[in-house]
């Protein structure tokens, strides 16, 4: 059957048949890089148009409908516009850091794509500490935000960056703890192992209440971590005009924008992998025919379907809720989410030791 792993295997076989192992590795790395950049761009375009359509329909509007059929090329047109725009650097800004910040944001996001299992047996890099790698690298994104805010020499940017710093550092904790719940249950940090452990049922189904709590905590925490409303303190446009990217324009702004959307994709992909089984199809008990039919759907479709469902959920939050205040945001983390996820982790550990989940 047609699948990503077959394609990658045949490319690998063809390359190793025609080149020596070093060249094979180099070509494969270049191919992977091109694929990642391509994915990055495509994801950005798709997610922007998706957000605009979702928001429009929730706001009883039509949304973009001029460029291409039903407006699907709107984000492409926007990208062209952003590319041809002048990227200005304010006079008082620290030029080096100011120009570096968007690239750091993008690089961090690209690095995060490495351990994600896009389909069954299809990963760029199946590192044995995959989940740890993701949480480690994703916390680097705060550096780009701080850098952008500081280098802009704008008070709104600085406030936004400081808010973002406080926010990402705090929410990292509960995101990490809820990820840890699954790691405890699966007994491995490797992404492929975690996916494999869900072959007989997704964790959300066989993990009972503790995993649900972990899932909800995870969704809230990653919404905050990616600076999405209702936690978009860093760019709260009615308070700080645009927060840390007030001074950015043109393609530099677009890189921040893209990085934000791809970040959303990545955290949703992690959520889908950990809690919803990633590329594992939906199986229900002993319904043989149903399970068999589900197996026919390619694993990549399962993965992207689950991920986009989570992305839609996060967009739904954004277009429904008002923004929190900065102190309430930190209260929510330290007074509610952190205690809940710590107790939850204890529960999960007890569950894993007593083998309730099996």
């Amino acid at each position: 059957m047609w699948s990503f792993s077959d394609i990658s295997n045949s490319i690998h076989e063809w390359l190793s048949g025609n080149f020596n192992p070093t060249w094979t590795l180099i070509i494969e790395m270049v191919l992977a890089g091109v694929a990642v950049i391509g994915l990055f761009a495509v994801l950005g375009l798709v997610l922007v148009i998706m957000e605009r359509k979702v928001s429009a329909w929730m706001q009883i509007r039509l949304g973009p409908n001029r460029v291409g059929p039903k407006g699907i090329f709107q984000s492409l047109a926007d990208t062209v516009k952003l590319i041809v725009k002048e990227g200005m650097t304010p006079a008082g800004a620290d030029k080096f850091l100011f120009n570096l910040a968007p690239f750091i944001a993008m690089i961090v996001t690209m690095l995060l794509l490495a351990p994600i299992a896009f389909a069954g047996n299809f990963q760029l890099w199946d590192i044995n500490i995959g989940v740890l790698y993701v949480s480690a690298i994703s916390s680097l994104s705060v550096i780009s935000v701080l850098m952008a805010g500081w280098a802009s020499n704008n008070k709104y940017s600085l406030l936004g960056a400081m808010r973002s710093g406080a926010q990402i550092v705090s929410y990292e904790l509960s995101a990490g703890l809820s990820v840890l719940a699954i790691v405890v249950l699966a007994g491995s940090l490797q992404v492929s192992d975690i996916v494999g452990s869900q072959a007989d049922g997704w964790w959300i189904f066989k993990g009972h209440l503790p995993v649900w709590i972990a899932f909800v905590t995870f969704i809230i925490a990653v919404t905050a971590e990616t600076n999405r409303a209702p936690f978009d303190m860093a760019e709260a446009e009615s308070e700080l005009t645009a927060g840390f990217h007030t001074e950015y324009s043109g393609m530099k702004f677009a890189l921040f924008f893209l990085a934000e959307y791809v970040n959303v994709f990545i955290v949703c992909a992690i959520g889908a992998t950990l809690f919803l089984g990633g590329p594992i199809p939906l199986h229900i008990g002993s319904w043989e025919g149903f399970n068999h039919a589900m197996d026919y759907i390619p694993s990549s479709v399962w993965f992207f379907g689950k991920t986009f469902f989570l992305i839609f959920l996060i967009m739904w939050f954004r277009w429904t809720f008002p923004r929190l205040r900065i102190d309430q945001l930190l209260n929510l983390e330290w007074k509610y989410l952190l205690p809940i996820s710590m107790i939850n982790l204890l529960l999960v550990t007890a569950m894993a030791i007593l083998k309730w989940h099996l």
Partner: protein
Amino acid sequence: MGAGKYISDVWSGFKSLLKGMKRTGYYFTHHKEIITQQYPDNRKELNLPERFKGEVVMPHNENNEHRCTGCQACELACPNGSLKVIFKNEMTPEGKKKKAIDKLVYHLELCTMCNLCIEACPSDAIKMAQTFEHSVFDRNKLIKILNTPGSKIMEGVE
């Protein structure tokens, strides 16, 4: 008490959030509720109410005649001087000199569509038109002459 209140707080907060999401979810799935008007496309179906105040016009009949006597009531009523009557001397058939309007100059760029001139006009010579797409590239194009060239006053209007 503490733990119970904590849990009930969390739960009721959660419920209120779900309620809001249900509402936006309803609109997300019910596209019939969309109220957007696609403006330049629906120009043909667009019908403005007959009282809509777009700009001041002076209706002429098929003989190129209007009802303006040049009494300057509109000019006096206008709060910002957007109407100006310019006179000319005309010879009546009997050979008498008679004052008649040459031009009724209308400054659309000054007009606030307050309807006071139309109220003030004793002979119903001017009225509001339902046009609203007034944008031009040259500001001078907004200075309009309401009566058409060569127009005359209608018979029997005093």
